[in-house]
C-alpha cells in the first residue's frame, strides 16, 4: 500500500432537528484513503455516505473526530482550509442537472475554478479549458454550448473536467453516474479510470451500486446507519463477504447472468426496513434486520475487527471468534 492521503478518525456528524432530537448521520467512522486508489463507499439511503463526503470536502464541519488530509486535521474547530487544499480536494456531484449552472456556457462554468486558483490571461484560459475538455474526451467546441444542449453523461464529464482544473490530488465522486443510463455510465466510468491512472488521482467513490464498485474500486467500505460494517479489498470482499448486512445487500442485487448469480450469497432473503437515523437501534444498528441476531447485539455496539489482513468487520459474530482464537493462541 502506498502513502495515506486521507485518514478519517472516529468521524461524527450529528444534525439537530427542530423538535430537539438529533440525527446521527455519521457516528464514529474511521478509514484511510491511499494515494492512487479508489475507495468505494457503499450504502443505502440514510447510511451517511454523502455526509462523510460533504464533511471531507468541507460543506459542513464535523461534530467529532478528525479528517486528516496529508496530516492536517481539516475538521478541527476553527480550522480554515487554504486555497491550495480547496483546490487539491475536489468533488463531482450526483445530479447532472444541477452540477452546472444552466444559464451559463460550459466555458463560463469551467472558468470558475481557474479564476480562483490559477489566474491567467484570457487566451491561455481558453487553451486550458480546451485541454481539460480533451482530457475527458469531449470535443473543444463544447465550450460554447449550454448545459441543456448536451447529454447527462457529457454534463458529468464537464464536471469532472472542471474538477481537474485545479490539479487535484483527490476527487470525491458523489454518485457521479447514478442518474445516468448504463450505456452513458460506461463512458464516464472508463474516463474516470483512465484519468486516475494518468494523473495518480485518489478517488473516494460514493455509491449505492455494488456491481459498479466490483469493477472500479480498489477497496470497498459498507456503511449502515452512520456506521461502518465492513471494509475490505474488492476481490476479497466480493468472494467472502462477512457481515450479515453485506451478505443481505449482495444477495439483493438483481443480476443478469448465471455467473453473477453464482457469486451472490444465496438464500438470504432481505427483510425489514431501514430504521430512521433519528432513533437508530441500540447496540448493533443492524440487529433489527439481522438473521443472526444474538442477545449481545441488542445491547452492545460491536467494534471494528481486522479478521484478515486489511479485511475489517464490525460484528459480534467475528469479534467473538477473534477473541476465542486469540485465547486459544494464548493457551498454546
Amino acid at each position, binding site marked *: 500500500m502506498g502513502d495515506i492521503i486521507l485518514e478519517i478518525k472516529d468521524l461524527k456528524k450529528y444534525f439537530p432537528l427542530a423538535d430537539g432530537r438529533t440525527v446521527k448521520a455519521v457516528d464514529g467512522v474511521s478509514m484511510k484513503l491511499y494515494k492512487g486508489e479508489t475507495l468505494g463507499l457503499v450504502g443505502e439511503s440514510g447510511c451517511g455516505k454523502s455526509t462523510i463526503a460533504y464533511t471531507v470536502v468541507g460543506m459542513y464541519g464535523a461534530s467529532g473526530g478528525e479528517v486528516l488530509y496529508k496530516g492536517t486535521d481539516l475538521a478541527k474547530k476553527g480550522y480554515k482550509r487554504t486555497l491550495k487544499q480547496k*483546490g487539491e480536494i475536489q468533488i463531482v*456531484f450526483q445530479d447532472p442537472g*444541477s*452540477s452546472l449552472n444552466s444559464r451559463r456556457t460550459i466555458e463560463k462554468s469551467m472558468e*470558475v475554478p481557474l*479564476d480562483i486558483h490559477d489566474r491567467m490571461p484570457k487566451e491561455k484560459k481558453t487553451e486550458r479549458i480546451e485541454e481539460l475538455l480533451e482530457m475527458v474526451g469531449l470535443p473543444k467546441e463544447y465550450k460554447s454550448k449550454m448545459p441543456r*444542449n448536451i447529454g447527462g453523461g457529457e454534463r458529468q464529464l464537464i464536471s469532472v473536467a472542471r474538477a481537474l482544473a485545479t490539479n487535484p490530488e483527490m476527487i470525491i465522486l458523489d454518485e457521479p453516474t447514478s442518474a445516468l443510463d448504463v450505456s452513458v455510465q460506461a463512458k464516464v466510468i472508463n474516463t474516470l479510470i483512465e484519468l486516475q491512472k494518468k494523473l495518480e488521482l485518489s478517488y473516494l467513490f460514493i455509491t449505492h451500486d455494488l456491481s459498479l464498485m466490483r469493477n472500479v474500486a480498489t477497496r470497498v467500505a459498507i456503511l449502515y446507519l452512520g456506521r461502518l460494517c465492513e471494509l475490505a479489498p474488492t476481490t476479497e470482499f466480493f468472494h467472502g463477504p462477512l457481515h450479515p448486512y453485506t451478505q443481505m445487500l449482495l444477495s439483493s442485487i438483481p443480476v443478469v447472468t448465471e455467473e453473477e448469480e453464482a457469486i451472490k450469497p444465496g438464500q438470504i432473503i432481505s427483510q425489514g426496513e431501514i430504521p430512521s437515523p433519528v432513533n437508530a437501534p441500540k447496540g448493533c444498528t443492524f440487529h433489527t434486520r439481522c438473521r443472526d441476531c444474538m442477545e449481545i447485539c441488542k445491547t452492545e455496539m460491536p467494534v471494528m475487527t481486522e479478521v484478515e489482513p486489511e479485511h475489517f468487520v464490525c460484528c459480534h459474530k467475528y469479534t467473538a471468534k477473534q477473541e476465542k482464537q486469540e485465547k486459544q493462541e494464548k493457551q498454546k
Partner: protein
Amino acid sequence: MKAERKEAMIKNWYKFSAGGVSVIGLAIVLLIILLAVFAPVIAPYPEDAGAVVKFAESSQAPSMEHIMGTDTMGRDVFSRLLISLRGSLLMGVLVLAIAVPVGFVVGVLAGYYKDTWVETVLMRIVDIFLSVPALVLALAIAAILEPNLRNSMIAITIMWWPWYARLSFGVASSLRTENYIVYAELTGAKLSHIIFKEFLPNTFDQILTKMTLDMGYVICMGATLSFVGLGEQPPMPALGNMINDGVKFLPEMWWLAIYPAVTIIVIVLGFNLLGDGVGNIFNVEGK
C-alpha cells in the same frame, strides 16, 4: 453556433407568440414608446403642455382640429396626453432601475443565508414594507415630501423594491443547495461571484418577466398619485392630474377624463400582454 442561436430565436418567438395576444402587447408597447419619444414632434400643439390659456378654443369637443378636444383653458388634450406619456414612461424606467437591483441584492442575500440571522433581519424588513398596502404608504411618503414628480417616484420606489426582494429570495433560497452553487463555494469563490455570476443569470428570467408586467403597474400607481395631486404638478400634464381635472366636468365634457383613462388602460394592458409573452418564453408564470 449561429444556426443554433437562430433556432433558439425561432423557438422563443414561437413561445412568445403562442397565445397570439403577446404580439398585440408588443405592438402597443412599441407604439407607446415611439409616441413618447417623438411626442414633441408629433403633438400638434406642443406648447399646450404648459401654462397656456387659449380662451378662444376652450372646452371644445373632439373635432378634426383637436382630435381629443380641448380643456377649459383651450389646451389640446391630445398634445397634453402625448407629452404626459414621457413622464409616465420615465417614472416606470427610473423606479424599476432602482427598485430591482436593490430588491435583488437584498433578496438573494437573504435567500443565500437562509436560516441565519441575515435572512431573519432582511426578510423581516421586507415583510414590514409589505405589511401595508403599497399605495397607502406611498401616499403618505409622497405627502410628507414636497408633492412633485421626483418625490412621487421616490415614494413608489420605496414601496416597490420589497417585491423584488421577495422574488429573488424565493429563487435564491431554492437554488442555494444546487450543486453549482455548492461547488463554487467549495472551490473558494467570492460572495460577489456567487451573487452576480451564479444567482443573477438564474433569477433573470423571473425578474425580466416581472419587470415587464410592473412597468404597467408602476405607471398606474404613478397616475394614481398624480390623480390625488401628489405627482407632477399642474400646469404640466400627467395622466393622473388630467383625469382629476376632467372629473370635475363630467359628464358634459367627458373627453377630458375618458381619453387619459383609456390611455392608462391601454398602457397597462400593453405591458401585461407583453409580460405574459415574456413569461411564456421563460416558462415563468406571471403574477
